[in-house]
Structure formats: C-alpha cells, structure tokens
C-alpha cells in the first residue's frame, strides 16, 4: 500500500491520497511508514518540478496533502520517531521592507522535505534579525528572498551586517526572487542566486554535501 500512496500523492490525487493514508493507519500500518511515503512522494514531485512538468500549483497541493497526512498520523505517533539527521540548517527570510512570502514559503517547504532544518524568519526581516538568527541557530546556509527592487539594497545591507558581525565566513548566502539574477547576487555580496525552489535545494546540498 505504501507504493500506492507514494504514487497517489505524486500524481496529485488529493482525495484518494488522504483516503489511502487513513486506510493504512486503520489497518494498523506503522504511522512512520505513512510519513515516509509522503517524503518519498515528494522526491518524485521535486523531480517533476525540476523537469518542468510540475509548477507552483503542484507544490502547493503537495504541501497541503503532506500537512493533512501529517495531521492524520500525529495522534498515532506514540513516541516521537527518530528523525534522520538533517543535511544542514537554513535560515530563511524576506528582507526588510518587502512582505512577499509565496516564493520564500515554497523554498522553505522544498528544503524541509529534502531533509534540511529550516528556520523561517518570515517577511520584512531586518538585517539585525538575520544576524541574531545566525548567532542563535548557527545555520549552514542563509536564504534571502525579495520581490521588489528595494530588495537589492536591503539584501546588500543584510549581507554587510552579517559580515560586520563576523559571521560571513560561517554561512553560505543564496538569494531568490522574480527580478534577481547573478548580477544581483554579485551586487549584494551573496554566494549564489537560485531561480527556483529546486535550485535552492541544490545549492544548499552542494554547500552541506560534506556533512
């Protein structure tokens, strides 16, 4: 049944997937197996996204399915299942003055299902808040998001604040947003620009690969 659940989720059959997950739990299946199926389905979804078969609608629906399945499973998870060691930690936020969250949320979700620990600082995040989060959470990667042209300068300010706090060497910084590009990454002093959520996952993996 697990294989069937994986396929159902990856094929975006929302209602069927929830029914199937419930049936598995009712039949006494290990709740962890149900959760694992969700994760494995997301690998397929990620591949299809990368191959441009899937776009935001499918990521949004997959996110909703995973959440709904998580809600079904939670009461049955008697003990906290041992989580596999995360690949790394990413601090994520939309820079000060900018309140767009859709792109950032999708990146956060994709990092999460790819086994990264994500600290999401939300939107309109001041440079000092990024600095504090880096000090507290000690991430490997910092992701700066921004949709508006004001984000160019705010990202620059943020990277400079990270530098001034003596933390620049400890983190890799990636940026994303509709009008961002490699020139922008260079201007703001980031390590890389990623055009979409899978690019963000790839960057984060490339930087934490040795761990």
């Amino acid at each position: 049944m697990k294989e069937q659940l994986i396929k159902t989720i990856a094929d975006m059959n929302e209602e069927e997937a929830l029914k199937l997950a419930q049936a598995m739990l009712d039949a006494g299946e290990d709740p962890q197996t149900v959760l694992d199926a969700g994760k494995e389905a997301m690998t397929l979804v990620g591949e299809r996204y990368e191959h441009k078969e899937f776009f935001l609608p499918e990521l949004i629906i997959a996110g909703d399915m995973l959440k709904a399945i998580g809600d079904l499973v939670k009461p049955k998870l008697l003990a906290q299942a041992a989580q596999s060691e995360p690949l790394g930690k990413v601090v994520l936020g939309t820079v000060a003055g900018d309140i767009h969250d859709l792109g950032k949320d999708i990146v956060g979700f994709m990092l999460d299902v790819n086994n990264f620990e994500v600290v999401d600082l939300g939107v309109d995040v001041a440079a000092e808040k990024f600095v504090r989060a880096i000090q507290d959470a000690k991430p490997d990667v910092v992701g700066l998001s921004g949709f508006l042209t004001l984000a160019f300068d705010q990202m620059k300010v943020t990277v400079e604040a990270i530098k001034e706090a003596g933390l620049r060497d400890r983190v890799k910084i990636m940026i994303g947003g509709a009008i961002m590009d490699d020139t922008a990454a260079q201007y703001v002093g980031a390590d890389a620009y990623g055009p979409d959520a899978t690019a963000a996952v790839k960057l984060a993996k490339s930087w934490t690969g040795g761990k």
Partner: protein
Amino acid sequence: MSEKSPAELYAERVKRVLDVAALRVPDRVPVFGPYQLYPYTFAGVTFVDAMNDYALAREACHKFQDYFQPDLDFGPILAYPAPAMELLDIKWFKWPGHGLDDNTMYQYIESENMTADEYDEFVYDPSHFLMAKWLPRSFPPLQGLAGWPAVRTFMWFGWTGGFVGLASPDVQQALRNAAAAGEELGRWFASIGQYAGEMVAKGTPQLYAAFDWPPFDIIGDTLRGTRQILADMRRRPDKLHAALEVATRIFVEYGSGAAGAELPLCWIWMHKGTRNFMSDAQFKEFYWPYLRQGMLALIDKGIIPVVYCEADVESRLEDFADVPPGKVIYHVSTTDMVKAKAVLGGIAAIAGNVPNVILLSGTPDDVREYCQKLIDTAGKDGGFIMDAAVMLDEARPENLKAMIDFTKEYGVYR
C-alpha cells in the same frame, strides 16, 4: 529638440509610439518613463508624502519629467491615494504610514475574498457578489454592505422588498463611508487630470489610456488569492473556467476606457502568467486563451494592449506570437531580448529591459553598453521601446539619464 514647440513634440512622440506598435520603422527608438515611485526618490519626497499630498506628487513628477525627458510619462497615478485608502482601510495593501515605513514601496497582501464554494455565486451575478461579499471583505468600513439587497430581484413588486433593505443603519453607514472615500478619490483624480493636462502642454503624452488585468489575475489577485487559484487549476478546473469567462468580459470593460484616445495604450498588468507560477500546459489552458480573447476584443476597438510582464516570460513567447501583427506591445521584464525578438519580430513590438540592478548599482557606461546591445538586436528595424526591465522605485539618476539620452542619440533609425 528645444526648437520644437510642445505641440510638435507631442505629435512626434505619439507618432513614434504608434509607428513602433504598428511595426513601422519609427524615426528613433522611443523611451518610456519607466517608473513607479522613482520621481519621489529623485525629488527627495518621501513615499508617504507623495501618497498623501497630491500637489507635492505632481511637483515631483514634473521635476522628473523636466530632467529626464522620456517620450511618455506615467505621472502620479502610481502614487496611490493614501487618504482614500485610509478612509476605506483597504485590507489587501500595506503602504507607507500604514504598516510600512515612510519610504517603503506599498505592497499587496495576499487574501482570500472569494471562497472555493462561492464560484457559482460570482458567475451568476458578479456585481452582486462584489457588492455584498467582496466590498465588505476588502474594505472594513463597508461591512454594512453585506446586507445590500440584490438589485436583480427588484423587478415587479420586488422593488418594495428591495428598497426596504436600504433602511438598515449598517447599510446606510457603509454608504456614507463609501461616499466620503468617493469624494476623496474625486480630489485625487482631479490632480491626475490636472497633471496630464500640464504634460500635454509640455509636449509629453501619457503612457496609459487605461489599466487592465488578465482574466486569470482578475480572479486570482483580489478574489481567490494566489495559492488558492493556482491549486484551483487542479482542484476545480470547471468552476475556474466558468469564472474566467466572466472575467474576460470584465477585462474588456476595464480596457475599453482606452478606446478613442490619441495614444490608446491599455496597460495590462500581467501577474501570474510569468515563468514560475504555472506550467506551459496550464498557461495554455487557463491563462492565455482568455487574455488573448480579451485582447482581440480590445484590438477591435482600436486599442493597443501593452502587456506588462512582471518577470521572465521566455516560455510564453510562442503563445504571445499568436496575435494579429502590429497590434500589441509586450513589455517582457527580464526575458532574453534576443530570443524575444526572434519569436515576436514582425508580430509584436517588445519593450524593456535594462536590468534594474544595473540602473541601481552600475555606471552610466554599463547602462550605455547594455542599451547599445538592446538597440542593435531588439531594436533592429523598429518594433522596440527602451525601458527598464521592471518599474523603477530607485536608481542612480546619472544611470537613468544615460539610458534615456543614449537611446535618443544612438537609437535614431537612418
């Protein structure tokens, strides 16, 4: 240029843009006034002041126009009227002085103002849905309109039961609040009109004769919300299609305001049709056919649709090419202009796309180098308008000046 009268300048600029749109080679590449709130940055006026003091906003736009002299001008219409927004307490925006710093660009906030099970209601009677559901949800001072009677039921004896609904104190208060906002908007539009007249007197035509939004975005922006409409393409495609048909008729209404204008540009703000939001197949099913159908109706009225894309649209170019030649202008943001020209050349004019990051952080030489490439490639044999990739809120003045002056000099067709 200084020896030409304003009337001559005006006629020359109108002709230049009409030529480009029609794919006739113009005298030179036209250059747009590519801004949102940049004039205020340039004039040292904070965004909060620009949105509250209409005279100050006009003054700043004059300063911008006098100094940079682009061919066409937006004017203060994109400095939204904060006093009216305050009166309506508009829920799907934050703006300077209302949730944002005094000098931060106003921004749209996602919200769901039509639920998934309200599609049928919208399709049945969009006006009543907007009156009784969308207005109260969007503007808290208009909450009383939730009790607004459906005018479609006023016929025959229905008027008795209909008008009695207006006796409700909540409805009456909402109408008073709406009227106050209307009066404020009257002052704002008077200011916009005054400015446009002053610009004509200086020889500068307006960049827009109407604003419009693609049918998909009409449903997706302030009704369903981005996440919801994107998922609706899979969850309830039939309901969405029915709503998009209604939205296409609304699209034509919005844009028809440009009919009969000397420069009948209908500026279409394309939001969710760009690169990352949906697949090509979804674009071809839900986005493009309705936008295309609406644009054809506008073209029939002599209107020139200007599709302003907010991000890369390379994968949409083949679809964009399916329009009658010489009738549409595509403003293609960060899309590769050589590819855009290759696909759209001979079909539609393209506008753009000096990267905003270069205007902000580069040198005038960087700008000139980029513009030269654009004119040599995208500008070959006409069909091209110089502009920033996306609308400006900030830039180094010397860079913007370099973009405009260089285009006037190097962009001449011989």
